């Protein structure tokens, strides 16, 4: 039976590169995929591209390609990534220049285009926002980006044309991994059961280190060896869409049925209906079985027909966020932090801020606890709110800072921060309204 090996080189935009290089060098891979595009990342990239048409792709693209290309070329491993972000075309050109500089000739690089649907969305003010049910017109002229989550088709087309490196913008994360399976095994785009299996594999791989013990390790309950040197995962998958997941021997981390189960359910809702542009995957009957150290067999994923719509992520400017923090120590530090919070609250009242939040870090900032431990000897007050102007947002941190001389005794270590808020909402648009195409270049 035909089989192939796919590795995962990154789980987010700023991920570590070292494990990817180890995987490329020793993983005997046919493909390596780098998932580098979070929900909001593309909106920020669109903003950047507006200021400079030669920017808007992943910030680490050059850093990564410099190291990846020579290895991938030597090992005959194809590279698929969404590092193109808002500008796959420019990312393609930059990658070609790097390949040339490294003395690699004949490398075919593809850019998958068409996910940018800003113009279409701007003309469709009557679309409903999925999260709130409101019409898109409510966002007025604040929209800065609209990108459809494309499926695997564009990448498959590029692979068919012999591309060695495929760079996309917004593409559904598992589709990056599913595309090479469809291409290599010749699966039909209507064979939803197999597409569901491949999507499950993509979902296991898309967060890279997370299935290898990253975001898993606990103290003695869930020990993970050499997490500092975590390896990234690869799968060996057969043409039926089943196989094993593993990592390179000698790397840190762990792959077992527990890490696989956590990753399977990561960021999914109904396990029987995991929506992607390629299919509605069904993970509800998936089974994992350990076949040795860091070796887990997966089976029984499935799938149904995909929806007729693409999900579109819309980025819009949503005001400014202002933040200030200050620490209190010693007996009654919690009460002094509370007093400080009340003072700042009064001073900020006239600004009409939104979502004003007072958290005491160490006590109630990340969990819903409402305990008041007597022996807590330090606590950090955090004040954060949204404002409609940068000026107002700055005032939040400033009022925390003035606690130094105008608040309770012993406050220290003030930090302040402001940032523009780029928020994201989603809409659905019919698939036939989106035209994708692929561009090529050769080094």
């Amino acid at each position, binding site marked *: 039976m035909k089989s192939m090996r796919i590795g995962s080189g990154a789980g987010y935009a700023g991920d570590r590169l070292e494990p990817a290089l180890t995987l490329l060098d020793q993983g005997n891979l046919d493909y390596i995929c780098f998932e580098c595009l979070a*929900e*909001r990342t593309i909106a920020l990239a669109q903003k950047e591209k507006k200021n400079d048409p030669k920017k808007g792709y992943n910030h680490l693209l050059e850093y990564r390609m410099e190291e990846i290309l020579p290895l991938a070329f030597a090992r005959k491993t194809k590279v698929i990534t969404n590092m193109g972000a808002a500008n796959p075309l420019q990312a393609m050109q930059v990658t070609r220049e790097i390949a040339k500089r490294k003395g690699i000739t004949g490398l075919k690089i593809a850019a998958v285009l068409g996910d940018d649907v800003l113009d279409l969305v701007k003309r469709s003010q009557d679309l409903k926002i*999925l*999260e709130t049910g409101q019409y898109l017109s409510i966002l007025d002229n604040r929209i800065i980006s609209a990108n459809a989550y494309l499926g695997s088709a564009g990448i498959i087309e590029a692979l068919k044309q012999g591309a060695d490196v495929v760079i996309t913008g917004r593409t559904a994360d598992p589709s990056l991994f599913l595309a090479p399976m469809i291409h290599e095994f010749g699966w039909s785009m209507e064979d939803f059961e197999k597409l569901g299996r491949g999507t499950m594999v993509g979902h296991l791989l898309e967060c890279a280190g997370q299935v290898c013990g990253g*975001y*898993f390790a*606990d103290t003695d*309950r*869930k020990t993970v060896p050499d997490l500092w040197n975590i390896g990234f995962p690869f799968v060996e998958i057969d043409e039926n869409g089943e196989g094993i997941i593993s990592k390179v021997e000698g790397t840190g981390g762990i792959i077992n*049925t*527990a890490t696989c*189960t*956590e*990753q*399977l*359910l*990561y*960021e*999914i*809702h*109904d*396990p*029987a209906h995991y929506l992607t542009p390629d299919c509605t995957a069904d993970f*509800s*009957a*998936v*089974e*994992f079985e350990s076949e040795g150290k860091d070796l887990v067999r997966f089976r029984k994923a499935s799938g149904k027909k995909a929806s007729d719509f693409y999900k579109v992520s819309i980025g819009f400017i*949503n005001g400014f*966020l202002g933040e200030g923090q200050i620490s209190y120590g010693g007996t009654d530090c919690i009460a002094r932090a509370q007093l400080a919070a009340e003072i700042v609250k009064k001073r900020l009242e006239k600004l009409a801020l939104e*979502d*004003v*939040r007072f*958290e005491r*870090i160490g006590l109630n*900032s*990340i*969990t*819903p*606890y409402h305990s008041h431990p007597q022996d807590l000897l330090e606590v950090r007050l*955090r004040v*954060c*709110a*949204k404002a409609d102007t940068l000026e107002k947002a700055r005032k939040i941190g400033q009022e925390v800072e003035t606690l130094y001389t105008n608040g309770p005794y012993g406050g220290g270590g003030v930090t302040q921060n402001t940032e523009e*808020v*780029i*928020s*994201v909402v*989603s809409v659905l648009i019919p698939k036939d309204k989106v035209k994708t195409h692929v561009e090529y270049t050769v080094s």
Partner: protein
Amino acid sequence: MKLREIAHARSGDKGNISNIALIVFDKRDFKLIKEKVTEKRVKDWLGDVVKGEVKRFELPQLGALNFVLYEALDGGVTSSTQLDKHRKSLSSFLLEMPI
């Protein structure tokens, strides 16, 4: 006994919706968490964090329950003023639940 003694958990976020996967170390304990960790108990335990409903999905072959918490992220990671915008820490807080 605290839930953490028999189970582990992972939270994820999507839009304004959080999900927490709860997985037993030993599949023989699945029946127990299925009985004790109901939608209602999770909603009560997390208090005003979850503004919408809590929905539970069962995966007995994996010893896992997946809880989907609607309106639990103050608008979501791209607009929340929370320190833990993803609310990833909710998974560890769920494990503090007495059963």
